[in-house]
Structures are given as C-alpha cells and as structure tokens.
C-alpha cells in the first residue's frame, strides 16, 4: 500500500511537470518570432499531450491508453510534416525536390 501511494505521488508530480512544460511550449508558440519556433512548440505540445495521456492512463489504472498515445504520435508527425512542407514549398501538393541531374 505504501509503495502504491508513492507511485501515485510520482505520477502526480510527473503530471504537474508536464503541465508546466505544456505552458512553456504554449508561451513559445505565442511569442515565437519565427515559424520554426511555432512548429517546434506545436510538436512539443503534441508530445506533452501524449505524455499526459499515458500518465493519466497509469493514474486511473488503465495503461492501455498507451495505444492511443501511439496514434497521437502518428498524427503529430503528419501535422508537423505538413506544416514544414508547406513552409518549404508553399504548396501541399508539391511533388518534392527532383534529384539534380
């Protein structure tokens, strides 16, 4: 029982730390002077959401939330790739760079 409460305490501390990290990332997204700051902040918020999901899953005794975390990670990658491709080419339908001769 003692170990269980210690584990819960650890998860609570981790959740609070992740919330603080989310706040910092949101600040960077709002203040970020360049597009890359904002894209990185968006990615960090997505990662923080995944971590929060996992920790809430363990806090409520349902570690199968981790599967949903994997789905979030995939979505995060797609969104970030779309943002970066748009910034590089200005067009989502661009075919990419051709090899130079």
């Amino acid at each position: 029982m003692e170990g269980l409460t210690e584990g819960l305490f650890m998860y609570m501390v981790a959740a609070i730390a992740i919330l603080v990290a989310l706040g910092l990332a949101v600040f960077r997204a709002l203040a970020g002077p360049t597009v890359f700051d904002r894209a990185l902040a968006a990615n960090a918020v997505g990662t923080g959401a995944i971590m929060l999901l996992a920790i809430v899953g363990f806090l409520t005794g349902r570690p199968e939330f981790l599967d949903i975390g994997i789905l979030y990670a995939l979505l995060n990658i797609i969104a970030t790739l779309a943002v970066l491709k748009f910034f590089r080419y200005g067009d989502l339908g661009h075919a990419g760079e051709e090899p130079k001769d």
Partner: protein
Amino acid sequence: MVLLTLMAIVTIGVVRLRNLFAVVILGGIYSFLMASVMIMLDAVDVAMTEASVGAGISTVLMLGTLYLTKMEETRPAHTPLLPLFVAVVTAGGLIYGTIDLPPFGDAAGIIHQHVAPHYLQNSIVETSVPNVVTSVLASYRGFDTLGETVVIFTAGIAVLLLLKGRRPASEPDSNAAKARSRRRRPKA
C-alpha cells in the same frame, strides 16, 4: 484547470495574431489541449476524434487553404463592440444554463434515469451488438445517424463542386494539375 487556462491563452493568441500561419499552428495546439481535457473527463474516444480531426486533418486542410489565400489577415473595418456584446450575452446565457445541470459524474442525474438503463440492460437482446455505444448509435438512433451522414455527404458534394469550379475548363483534370506544377517549378 491549468489546461483550460492554457486553452484560453491560446484562444486569445488566435484572436490577436495577424499571421495566419501562426494561427493555424495555434489551432493545432488548441486541439491537442482540448484532447487532453477530454481525457481528463474520461472521454477517450472523443479525445481521439478531437486529436485526429482537430490537430491532424484540420491543420493540413487549413494549410491547403492558406495556399489559396494570403498569409496576413487584414485589419477589421468595423469596431468589434457589437459582436463582443453578442458573444458575452450568449456566453452568459450558456453559463446560466449550466447552473441547473447536475454535478459531473452524478449517477442520479436525469440523463442516467431516462432511457440509459433500458439501453444498458436490453441492448444485447434487442440488437445483439456487444458494444452499447454502437448499438445506440446504429440501431436505437439509426435515423439520427442517417441524417448526420446525409448532412456530411451533402457538405462533401458541395465542397467538391466548389473545388471543381476553380479549374480551367479547357484542360483535362490530370493534365491541368501536371501543367500547373510544371509551370510553377522555375519560380521555386
């Protein structure tokens, strides 16, 4: 609570910023925060929908829209006082409406007394669907779901018609796209 505060901050940022690219990214962040709030409320399926639609597809679609429009939002021509007044009155009405709601997770709430026990007890017998949510959506409220599907189908057709109107009529579709990308390449 912290998440909701962050969401409010992000919303104010969306309203204040004029760079639409940053606004799109902030929209993605807002969706992820919203999904986290849904998880806190123990609605994992809604959170998954919010993350996939709000943060994933919406961001991509909005970026595609940015390609067709300008990157900077123009200054509004009129003062925002009247819309602000309407929004504040509506929000006040909604908050007044939440006063009468039963507390969150209350098992004695009206919503849990009406038809929910019937669904929970008889869904296997009446529909032989093991998941109660699925049986409610697809069987008990089948016409409702059909209506929703019709609405989404109509919206999809409308969007397709609008997008088709943008193409020059003389060129066939695939050739037109190829020709356009070829024409743009020297510039990039």
